[in-house]
């Protein structure tokens, strides 16, 4: 089972997961082999072959799969914006909003 919250914010409200640039992706599947959280799915005989199947399994702020990607086809959302967003939600909820 994956985490359901991050710093008290439900995981589905935090947009943090890899983005695949299919112009760069060469279907090597290094990222899928690397990630222990079952974020990606490899679909044989389909196009695109690699998709982000379980974005909410992705560990918030982890970008390790992007480092394994030879063609640099994986990016992540802006960390500072994500941090600010999490703080904003927490603040809103603390204030009863």
């Amino acid at each position, binding site marked *: 089972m994956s985490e359901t919250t991050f710093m008290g914010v439900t995981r589905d409200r935090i947009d943090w997961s890899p983005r695949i640039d299919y112009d760069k992706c060469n279907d090597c599947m290094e990222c899928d082999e690397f990630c222990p959280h079952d974020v990606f799915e490899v679909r044989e005989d389909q196009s695109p072959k690699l998709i982000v199947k379980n974005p909410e399994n992705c560990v*918030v702020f982890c*970008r*390790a799969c992007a480092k394994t990607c030879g063609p640099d086809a994986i990016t992540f959302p802006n*960390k500072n914006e994500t941090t600010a967003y999490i703080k904003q939600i927490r603040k809103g909820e603390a204030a009863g909003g």
Partner: protein
Amino acid sequence: MDKSYAVLPCNGLDKCAGSVTREIALRLLKKTDSKIICPVFFRVSDSRYGKLAQEKPLLVLDGCATRCASKLAAEKGLKIDERINVSDMAKEENIALGLDLTLNAEAQTLVERTVAGLLSSSETVAVDQEGAAHAFFPACLSYETFQKDKFIFRLPVDEGFYFNENDVWAYVSGTHARIGVTDFVQKSLSDIMFFTPTAVGAEIEQFDDLGTVESGKAVFEIISPVSGIVTSINEKLIDAPEMLNQNPYEQGWIAEIELSDFAEDRNLLHTFSGYLPIMKRKVTEFHV
């Protein structure tokens, strides 16, 4: 000879907690050979107190979370040997510091207890001889332990430890922090074979990575709980990464950071009591 300090109180006049720092400083002066560093004069003149801070261990007394005295010490490049935050102490002692700027009986009690605590601590604080690095970390830690199957997990209960939900700890003291991973990380990775650090001098934002640790099973990205500049890394881990498995809180520490905005970073961190249930849940859900 009694323990003595160079005492730097915040001496804040607009909060009761600031007045408490002043009172603690005066009491220490009376009872020991301690000397006071006046924050107001220190701000405009380095020469008066520079030598004093070298001769005696520096005790910084902050009244509130703004930590003016700690910041002043950092600005002046002083290493803090001991630090007390009066507001935190008041919470621990269950003492309400009122809005009244003069000290009430409860505040006086807090002064007495703090001074007694400082003078009774048996550990003699060494004056800094090799620079700021490493000196701020406690000599020994206390742990809470729990077990899953045959595995025993530990978590330090000592004050000053903060944790992010990426299972990385920071021990914060003054303007410095030491960083490492928790027992959950080292146990879930099992035998760690590689430690790839970030560079000393690197400027790190909160949740940037501080390098990786790797076992035969997986690579773990070390997500920094705090922002600042990396002042040192634990080079011993490069040759002996197994130290991380032996104890990730003591000899297996990862890096040290000079903090840039801990007051802000802290908003997204847990203390021991917040992180313990998270680590327990992760341990329960983890399948080897």
